[in-house]
């Protein structure tokens, strides 16, 4: 039987320091309605100034280790998805995580440079890498602390983005085991619009309208294509998990797809848009829900880049 890799568990880390968006209502001329029902972010999480991206990954791993038996000597590969790496990016952040976790020389480590689509891409990359090379256990980290590059006076970004990290344990599945299996992936890019969300001389700049228009139009098209590719009707999907860009964009995508709002959970109000961590933070809340057997994940943003996949709970 061919080796198959599935998602076993997720660990998460959200820094304990938060900046309230209510405290900036007057400064930015915004209302409670805008905070709660439009951006949907009451507060944003902020890492400590001396906390590195790899430190955040290690804290997410500590959370994972509390949930599942996960000995470091059993880890065959680690991958970190970030565009705000440790230091100036050399060495790669995954090497720093490798060192801090005390992983062995036979554990592969590399980074992926992607933003909000990174978790979906990362699932495919790690799953494929493991299956191609016969690896048993892999860790996919997401940690993209935008606080490193946010202008505190920029209303468009400072109210929205929060820091967080996650780690997803992917393992080869033994006969009789039940895990979440990524069933089908779709990927897309539109590099010509890359300046809609980019780091300009060390500061994040965002054209909110361009990002909104892109997501509102492109994501429903890709999700419909995904459903068609796997021959599954929207009614047969238990949950649709969208990158938590803002409440408004998630609501817009839900309405444009014509799917019920109760199939589109939200999780950003207490920490903000956590970039590539937003999907695994959300998935973590539903992974062990016995009533959920099929989910669509869709990430979209920086690049522009977007990716969607179908996850199915499957007994091997």
């Amino acid at each position, binding site marked *: 039987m061919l080796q198959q890799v599935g998602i076993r568990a997720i660990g998460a880390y959200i820094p304990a320091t938060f900046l309230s968006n209510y405290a900036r209502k007057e400064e930015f001329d915004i209302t409670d309605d*805008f905070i709660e029902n439009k*951006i949907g972010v009451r507060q944003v999480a902020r890492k400590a100034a001396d906390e590195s991206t790899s430190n955040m990954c290690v804290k997410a791993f500590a959370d994972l280790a509390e949930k599942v038996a996960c000995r470091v000597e059993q880890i065959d590969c680690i991958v970190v998805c970030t565009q705000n790496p440790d230091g100036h990016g050399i060495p790669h952040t995954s090497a720093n995580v490798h060192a801090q976790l005390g992983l062995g020389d036979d554990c592969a480590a590399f980074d992926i440079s992607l933003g909000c689509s990174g978790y979906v891409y990362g699932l495919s990359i790690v799953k494929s890498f493991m299956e191609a090379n016969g690896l048993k256990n892999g860790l996919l980290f997401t940690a993209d602390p935008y606080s490193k590059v946010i202008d505190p006076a920029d209303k468009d970004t400072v109210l929205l983005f929060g820091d967080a990290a996650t780690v997803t344990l992917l393992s080869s599945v033994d006969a009789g085991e039940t895990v979440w299996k990524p069933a089908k992936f779709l990927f897309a890019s539109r590099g010509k619009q890359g300046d809609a969300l980019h780091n300009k001389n060390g500061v994040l700049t965002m054209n*909110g*309208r361009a990002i*909104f*228009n892109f997501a*509102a*139009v492109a994501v429903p098209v890709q999700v419909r294509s995904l459903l068609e590719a796997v021959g599954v009707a929207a009614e047969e999907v238990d949950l649709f998990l969208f990158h938590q860009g803002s409440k408004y964009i998630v609501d817009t995508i839900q309405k444009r797809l014509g799917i019920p709002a109760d199939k589109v959970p939200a999780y950003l109000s207490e920490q903000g848009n956590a970039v590539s961590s937003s999907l695994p933070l959300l998935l973590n809340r539903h992974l062990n829900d016995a009533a959920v057997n099929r989910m669509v994940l869709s990430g979209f943003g920086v690049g522009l880049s977007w990716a969607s996949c179908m996850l199915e709970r499957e007994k091997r």
Partner: protein
Amino acid sequence: MSKLSVAVVIDIFHEVNPAVIVKETDADKTFKEIGFDSLDIVSAFLNIEERYSVQIPDDEVPRLSTINKVLGFVNS
């Protein structure tokens, strides 16, 4: 394609934010005065672009602050 009308713009804005009441007599009030925020405007403009096959450039958006200004731009 038929021209964009005040009634259609009102319908589109009502779709994006049903909580805000807009009347035809509001056609020269700014969207902000009527009660719409920047996200409502972005969303409504996208709907207009899609329905009327027009492009509203980013630098036009600040100028298109009322229903009548939007009509003038799209119908020209």
